[in-house]
């Protein structure tokens, strides 16, 4: 488990890329901050729930459903995880 509290944004991004590969087979080079989960990465709503749960386990944070609505891009998710751990 990567601790979100001590990880750099680059490490969080790399961790998220591993989660996306595991859950959805997303190529790592597509996981860039401006990529939108639905439009660019083809992550449907069910798979997004899996991504969230995997991130919670990996980074030791909690991502409530209310927050999920604001996580449009990979950058949104990295920022949220960093903020949730701070």
């Amino acid at each position, binding site marked *: 488990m990567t601790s979100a509290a001590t990880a750099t944004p680059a490490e969080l991004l790399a961790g998220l890329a591993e989660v996306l590969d595991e859950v*959805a*087979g997303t190529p790592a080079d597509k996981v860039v901050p401006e990529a939108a989960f639905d439009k660019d990465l083809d992550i449907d709503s*069910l*798979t997004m*729930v*899996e991504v969230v*749960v995997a991130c*919670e386990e990996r980074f030791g944070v909690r991502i409530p459903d209310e927050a999920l609505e604001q996580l449009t891009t990979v950058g949104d998710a990295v920022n949220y995880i960093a903020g949730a751990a701070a």
Partner: protein
Amino acid sequence: MTGTRYADGPVVVTGLGAITPLGPDVAAFTGGLLEGRSGVRLLDGPEFADLPARLAATVDATGRLDRIEARTLDRVQQLALIAAREAWADAGAPEVAPERLAVVVGSGIGGALTILGQHDVLREKGPRRVSPHLVPMLMPNGPAATVGLELGARAGVHTPVSACASGAEAIAYALDLLRLGRADVVVCGGAEACVHPLPMAGFAQMRALSTRHDEPAAASRPYDKSRDGFVLGEGAGILVLESEEHARARGARVHAKLAGAGLASDAHHVTAPDPSGNGAARSIVLALRDAGVSPDELGHINAHATSTPLGDVAESRAFAQALGSARPPVTATKSCTGHLLGAAGAVEAIATVVALRDGAVPPIQNLDDMDDEADVDAVRVVPRRFEHTSALSTSFGFGGHDVSLVLTR
């Protein structure tokens, strides 16, 4: 609406696909039947150790699907998809308008492995760890939905659920759809994957399973005096059906005609077969009438024959009742494959198509000492050649479902 209606005329089989305990495709399946290979093994995992019956006929689906494709599909959906891809390719990937392509895939139990596995997750890790894919993976229409999505079928996706008759009922329903003009091509069949301690414990408590643990390959022995129950199997069988006119117009190769289907129900007992074989017999008579085939024209019967003491005898009475003095040679696919439950009727229809096409009935394995009560002309030891143009496949399920299919060359 696009496409032409082909409501009249014969329905033909143009594509076959199967993943069975005998191997990865139709060739391995039907070749294995002629060679008399067994797909049955003793389950040696610790989770099966306490079960009174530990035999099963499993399939190897390793590497058949992409990792990501597989992880949101229950095993029963995976097997259906693998068989559907083979069948679709075998049919030459017909060009058909999506609005004229239908899917009918039955399953006896549905996504049992997912529901049981996720129940463990719920208990051990809580509701937030339960997969968001749980519901589409456990639903009994999951295999049909998966195949429908794969092929882009928009004329309807259907799922008959009638236990061990599901696969045959799916084929019968597909025949109806074509005759009613609701589709030009129908992809149909059945799938099952429930080799898990819980369903096996349930079947074992019914005393329905063989416990011949010291001889797995000899455990499924329809019509033999010492048979002691069925062997649970898994797998999928898929057929592509279309009107003969549609097949001819696109220059498709035709394996056989699906000439008729007959459905009945016992209203006798939820699991025990009607000992008189009455419902089964009526389904056979209806199928022959639908096909316009007389008992004398039948060259072969692919019997349901599960290797249970009661079922095999009841079915043999149904043959006598429905066919009179005609005694077509009988084979029992389950002697090699075990009982694929909701997939059984589909893979056995495929075996019947291939037997008709090649003019050879595969022998029943393990039939050393014929039960005198089951009075059938059983094909034993070596395949038997036949010249007739018609064959019958029967399927029966818990719930008292009786389905018979008549295929012709």
